[in-house]
Structure formats: structure tokens, C-alpha cells
């Protein structure tokens, strides 16, 4: 486990973390896709022109750190800073890894 990071594991189901009704927050939804389909990231953000690439990189890096693959990640950003995007992605992954 990396320091400050989280445990590795497989995404089992669709899960969310964060909110869209609050400034500086972000709603991250993650769901498993077909094996071999890789990582797909869809982003909605009022600052997509300026920060879309950075948001994608942040989400991508959390997925890589946790060795998560074959997922669709939808990001609805409300002006969240990098730490919040990371945190919401981590929580969404953790929730998606939990057995129901």
C-alpha cells in the first residue's frame, strides 16, 4: 500500500462519491465494464477547457495507484480542487470494491 493511498482491489459494482449540489465538490461515479475494455473517463466541468486535462490526469493516477482497470468513470465537477477529486475518486473506488 502506498503511503496516504488505499488498498488495491477489483471494482465489483457501480458506486458514487461526492456531490454536484455543492461548490468545490465533484461527483465521481465508477462502474465495471467488460474485461479488456480498459479505462474510460467522461468529464463534465464548467472549467473543462482550462482544467479538463488535469482532472483526467488526477482520476487516471488514482486508478493506476489502485490498479483498477476495465471501468467507466464519470466525473461531474463543480470546481473541485485536486485533493477533492483524488479523495472522491478513492472513495468511489472503495465503495465499488465493497461486497453488497
Amino acid at each position, binding site marked *: 500500500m502506498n503511503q*496516504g493511498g488505499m488498498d488495491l482491489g477489483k471494482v465489483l459494482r457501480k458506486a458514487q462519491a461526492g456531490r454536484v449540489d455543492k461548490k*468545490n*465538490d465533484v461527483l465521481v461515479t465508477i462502474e465495471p465494464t467488460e474485461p479488456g475494455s480498459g479505462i474510460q473517463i467522461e468529464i463534465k466541468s464548467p472549467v473543462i477547457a482550462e482544467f479538463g486535462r488535469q482532472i483526467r490526469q488526477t482520476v487516471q493516477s488514482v486508478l493506476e495507484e489502485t490498479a483498477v482497470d476495465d471501468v467507466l468513470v464519470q466525473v461531474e465537477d463543480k470546481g473541485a*480542487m485536486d*485533493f477533492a477529486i*483524488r*479523495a*472522491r475518486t*478513492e*472513495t468511489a473506488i472503495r465503495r465499488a470494491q465493497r461486497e453488497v
Partner: protein
Amino acid sequence: MKLRRTMLFVPGNDPGKLLNAGVYHPDSIIFDLEDAVSINEKDAARDLVKNAIKYNEYPCEVGVRVNHISTPFGYDDLEEILKVCPDFIRLPKSEAEEDIVAVDKIISQAEQKYGYEPGKIKMVLTIETAKGILNSYKLAIASKRVVAIGMGAEDLAADLKATRSKGGQEINFARSQLLLSARAAGVQAIDNVFADVSDIEGFTADVQMGKQLGFDGKSVIHPKHVALVHQIYSPAENEIVKAQKILLAYQEALANKSGVIALDGKMIDAPIVDRAERVLRYAQAMGIIQDGDGK
């Protein structure tokens, strides 16, 4: 000793509030994973606070109020939060010495695991029950990490079966007991939260009473309270001048190896010197005097 005039609670699941917590310049920030976070969002708040500490810079010390280890969240909070080395853990519902010892052990293990300096992460206790108040001295000395103790007035009042009032008379004994325990244990005493954030007059009177009793600072839940508490804890000009004279006389006496120290015909002893140093520390924190003015 570090100044803790204000310990500002910040809800742990609000990214905007976590981001801006330092703007108000409290002496300490406490990211709250306990009462401010609903049960369904405990995991999310934990991740958010962990990342806030890891990636943001704050102008003051940063601690985390975790859930108590008797709840399903306490151990998970500690496991995640200790990865990013907070300045302190604020432990709610402190009542039994064995809980303090257990948390101390968990912190020690984390310090070793992540290579932090042993003893770096401190503990601040919140005491919220009659049993906890009666046991407060033993709690304060249960771990060398404990640097301050405070009180959760609302929970305590409920435990006492008291009715809360604006003046807070119903918690007077507990407030004084907490202060006695803190002083006896050599840790700081942090006055309790004043819950009605819109009542500035009541808040001001409450802070003034806390200062008069001898508290080192106050827990606050609204940023607008920070400057007000700092102002009230700021010493008056005549107090500062007197403290400077006392320290000067004390230092001269030390230099001259004089056994008896007097100023304006009055004897100066250790408690008076301690009080003068405390006055100057608060004055320095407010920027009224510069570091070294009291020396």
C-alpha cells in the same frame, strides 16, 4: 508551549471548507470526522480529510477529530488519517484511561511504520461525560502525547441531566474541574464550544469568562469567532508593560545572581514570572509586540 487560543472545527466532508480553513488564521484547525459527518459519509470524509492534509498547505497546526474507537469508524479513521501525519488527534468522549493508552499505541505504531519522529503526533482530549470529568486528571496524564484537554458541553449537559442556559452555570463545576485537571497535569485547558453562533454578545461573555478562569483558548465552530477570541485573549497594554518590567527585573536578578527579586517594592516569584511570560506570548501572537521585546 504552543499557543492554542482558537481551535476551529471544520466539517470533514466539505471540500470548500477544508480548502479555506486556514484563511481565518486560527491557532489550530480541527477537521471533524465525528459529529459533523453523517454515518453514510464517514468513509468519504475520511478520504477527503486525508487528501486535504496531504496536498494542501495550512498556516497553522492541523488535527483531526476522529470517531471514538468504540464506534465502527474509530479504528478506520486512525488507520487512514495517521498515514498523512496530522499534528494531533482530537479524541472525543474521552472517559477511560485505557482508551487513551490504546490510541497512543496505535499512533506509536503508525509513527514507526511511516518513519515519523516518535511522539510527533499529539493528542487533544474532549471530555463529555460526568465520569470523564471526574477522571480528567488521569486522562490528561495517561499519555505523554496529550497536550490539551477540552470539554464537550452539550453532551456533558445531557449526561448531567442539566438544562443548557446562555450563561452556562450548569457546567460551572465541570469547567473548573477541567481547568484544575489540566493545570495539575501540565497540559493546556481548552474552553468549550459556544453553540449559538448568532449570539455574539453571549459568545463574548462566554469567552471572557473562560479567559478569566484561566483557559488557554477556546474551541470554536464558526470562522467569524476566531478574531474575536484572539482579541479577547489579547493582553491589555498595561498588562504587557508590567510583564515586560517583571521579566526584565527577573533577568537582571539572574545576571546578578540575586536571590530575592523585587519590582516596585513587591517581591517577584516564579508564578509571577510564569504569568508575565504567558502575557507576552499572547501579545506576540497578536503582533502587539515583536519576538524579543520581552527579553
